[in-house]
């Protein structure tokens, strides 16, 4: 007996399109339950739980004008979606560089245009030890991530992760 016969029926009993519809229904059902539970179904299957953390970042060098767009209380976003996190502190700092001068001396000084910013964020992440997932990004000390709000999308390094009580 053929697995799929000439009428496109599996073992001569059920049509392939019917199977497709059943599979789609199952996906829809799982998707709905997951959405109703605000993503907790998929998280619980992966063993992840919600965790409130404070994350510290240092940005790549940008114009000071750009860094002034990082505003306290601005919500973090992921493309067209708001995430459960906001900027809690911003400090703009010098960007130190070193160059050899015309006398062969190594000169260390502040970049005349660019600065960096130390940024703190308080957010709720999906935590499946040892991974902290936030939207599509993963927070690990040393990771390069994007700090994204309505008006900024700046590259930054994760420097510290602390749990918030």
């Amino acid at each position, binding site marked *: 007996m053929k697995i799929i016969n000439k009428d496109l029926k599996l073992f001569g009993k059920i049509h392939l399109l019917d199977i497709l519809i059943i599979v789609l229904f199952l996906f829809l059902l799982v*998707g709905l339950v997951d959405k109703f539970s*605000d993503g907790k179904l998929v998280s619980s299957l992966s063993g992840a739980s919600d965790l409130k953390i404070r994350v510290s970042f240092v940005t790549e060098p940008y114009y000071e004008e750009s860094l002034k767009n990082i505003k306290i209380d601005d*919500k973090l976003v992921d493309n*067209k979606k*708001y995430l459960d996190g906001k900027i809690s502190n911003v400090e703009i700092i010098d960007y130190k560089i070193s160059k050899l001068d015309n006398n062969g001396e190594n000169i260390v000084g502040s970049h005349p245009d660019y600065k960096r910013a130390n940024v703190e964020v308080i957010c709720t992440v999906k935590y499946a030890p040892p991974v902290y997932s936030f939207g599509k990004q993963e927070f690990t000390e040393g990771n390069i991530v994007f700090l994204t709000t309505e008006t900024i999308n*700046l590259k930054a390094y994760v420097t510290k992760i602390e749990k918030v009580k």
Partner: protein
Amino acid sequence: MTNNKTKKKKFNIIDILAVLAILALAILLALYFGMKSNASRGIKLITGKVDLEIIAEAEDVLDEVAVSAKEGDKLVALKRVQDASLSKVEIINDYEISAIDGKITKSEKTGKKRVRVTISAKANRYGPYFDIGGQKIKTGEPYWIKTVKFNALGNIISVKIKE
């Protein structure tokens, strides 16, 4: 004859319609619950047009090209004039950072300019996402500054939402 034709029919139009209806329903529900998820965090998704003031800058622009950026020129994208124009154009000599006599300093690059433009625009908004002619608008993003007579790849330096 007619019976044979019916037997050879492999796809039922009703099945196909059912599949399409389920797909459409799944997409609509995902969009609906996506919005509901934002709403549960007390966030109202705003869609439509938003007035923005954007500062963008292109480096390493040839002298001959830089002079073509003019105040008042409309932006062009997707082969169309956009609802956005250059409200201010600053052209300065481009430079690189070097050290001279013990000091970090700026050294001029010959034949190259930095073109910094302020753009007043009505951008498309979907929640926290803004775009003009398909280009995402956020500080730090690369940006093509393109008018009818000028075109250079730069970066967005600043974005302000006009109230």
